[in-house]
């Protein structure tokens, strides 16, 4: 434990703090251990049991990817100077956005990884639109996702192309729209702040501290998003999807909303959607393009990283653009415009 600092004028004495988080932590732990059997019995309702299994599964599945994202953001903070990024990105705003979108190909993984990296890019002076384009592109156009889509739709390889085009168009579209129309205050200043570590520390120290800090920052929001997704997962009735087989417009709308609400990982959503064999291809494509762009997990992470004001504008924007790009990509690239299963 730290020794009490000597007080002197101009320096605050080390304050003991409120009954500290540590004490609270210990207290809760004791309560839970003592009442463990009651807690377990409470959860024995099938619905709660399933929800808690799904909740834990989503958290556990996402955590390594979030960690990867924070490690990368730490690397950006520690090893990539703002000058380097400025040199690599084209001067023209629109070209920078397009380049950033294409760069999304290199970051494999869940959408959870992209948010901390985007935040660091913004902190390093990358134009907002470009950083956001990267954030949207990375989860959707990376090789793992494309391969998974190809495996899940062996009879419809055009789904891979449609997904790639739709997602890239979404990323670049949102990035360009944001560059053109967003007011400066919409991305709060605190999100731009560089890693809060004093000078004179080694690069590795900056790396570790940034990663640790970002992990704590984002982790709580991930859990929030996972809880919402788990609740939706057990509450959405099966009949909802069964009834959509014949209706294209309704199908597209429902699948778009389901993509947001079910918050599936972009590596797995292709398999889930491939199994809905009665649905036409177009609504299924919409699910695949909208999901990695906006869902409960992402909204929670973005709220935590960039603030509520940002998320309140960015989420609807990405939803509308993703929906539009998916429908256009589907009508153009899918056989019979995706109107058949």
């Amino acid at each position, binding site marked *: 434990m730290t020794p009490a600092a000597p007080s002197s004028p101009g320096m605050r004495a*080390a304050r003991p703090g409120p009954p500290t988080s540590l004490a609270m932590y210990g207290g809760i732990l004791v309560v839970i251990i003592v009442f463990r059997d009651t807690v*377990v019995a409470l959860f024995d309702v099938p619905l709660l049991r399933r929800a808690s299994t799904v909740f*834990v599964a989503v958290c556990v*599945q996402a955590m390594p990817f979030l960690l990867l994202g924070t490690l990368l953001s730490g690397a950006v903070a520690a090893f990539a100077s703002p000058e380097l990024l400025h040199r690599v990105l084209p001067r023209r705003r629109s070209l920078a956005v397009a380049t950033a979108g294409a760069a999304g190909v290199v970051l494999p993984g869940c959408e959870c990884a992209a948010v901390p990296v985007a935040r660091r890019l913004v902190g390093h002076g990358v134009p907002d639109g470009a950083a956001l384009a990267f954030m949207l592109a990375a989860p959707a156009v990376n090789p793992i996702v494309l391969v998974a889509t190809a495996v899940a739709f062996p009879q419809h390889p055009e789904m891979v192309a449609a997904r790639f085009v739709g997602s890239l168009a979404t990323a670049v579209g949102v990035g360009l729209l944001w560059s053109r129309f967003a007011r400066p205050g919409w991305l709060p200043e605190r999100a731009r702040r560089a890693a809060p570590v004093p000078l004179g520390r080694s690069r590795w120290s900056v790396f570790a501290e940034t990663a640790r800090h970002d992990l704590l920052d984002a982790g709580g929001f991930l859990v929030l998003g996972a809880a919402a997704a788990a609740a939706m997962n057990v509450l959405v009735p099966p009949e909802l999807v069964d009834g959509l087989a014949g209706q294209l417009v309704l199908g597209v709308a429902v699948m778009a909303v389901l993509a947001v609400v079910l918050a599936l*990982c972009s590596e797995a959503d292709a398999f889930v959607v491939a*199994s809905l064999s009665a649905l036409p291809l177009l609504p299924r494509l919409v699910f695949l393009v909208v999901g990695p762009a906006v869902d409960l997990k992402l909204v929670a992470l973005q709220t935590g990283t960039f603030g509520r004001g940002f998320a309140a504008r960015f989420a609807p924007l990405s939803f509308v653009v993703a929906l539009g790009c998916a429908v256009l990509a589907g009508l153009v690239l899918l056989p019979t415009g995706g109107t058949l299963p």
Partner: protein
Amino acid sequence: MKQDADNLLLLLVGGVLIKMVVDGTSLRYVRPGFAPVLLTAGLVIVVLAIVAIVRHLRTPDDDAGAPPEDEHASHGAHAPRIAWLLAVPALTILVIAPPALGSDAVEAGTPRPAPVVADALATAALPPGDAPRLTVTDLVARMAADPTGPATTHDVSLEGFLVPARSPRTGTDLARLVISCCAADASPVRVHLAATELLAPTPGDRDQWVLVRGRVVHGTGTRDDGYVPTLAVTAIEPVAAPDPVYEY
């Protein structure tokens, strides 16, 4: 003080991830292939926490409020409050240990029928043996590819749990849950069991795991019956739940 609590939180999270892989409970939630990734993540988180703790212990004078650290401390004050939510899944795993999804997920919740991927494997010959073991997914895929395949003329063995048949059918089905990424995308695969006067799932919480032996009825398992082949059962015996519980 706050720093310590943060780092303990990270230790808890990392430690739980490591524990899950070591004692195998991760299989209830994610695929077996993901376990090394989880283990690595758990170790990295633990290392990050330890590095921070060591650094914190080594430089106690930073707590006295030197200007750069002040900003860090006040900025750090933002993170912890919601970061405490990280404790929720960790404690859930330790205290409640949510079980793998089972028959209630098949009957009551999942909106998706099973994936049917008719690839080369589906038309391959059956494995050797008197009544070779197939996964339910494998059998469903084979029947979808060819409803007159070898499983209609040769006994096969399947392992799964009993659920009531999907309406409008009556009777009993044998089911398994298939996951692609994690338990959140679990989808059921079913095989309808003929000759079910012998068995019906008894009400109760435990899943009834059985090993059945039989032959697929000719022409079932097509689009018409929702890719649920009918198995004419010749033998059935209760078994213990397998580990892992899911098919992939």
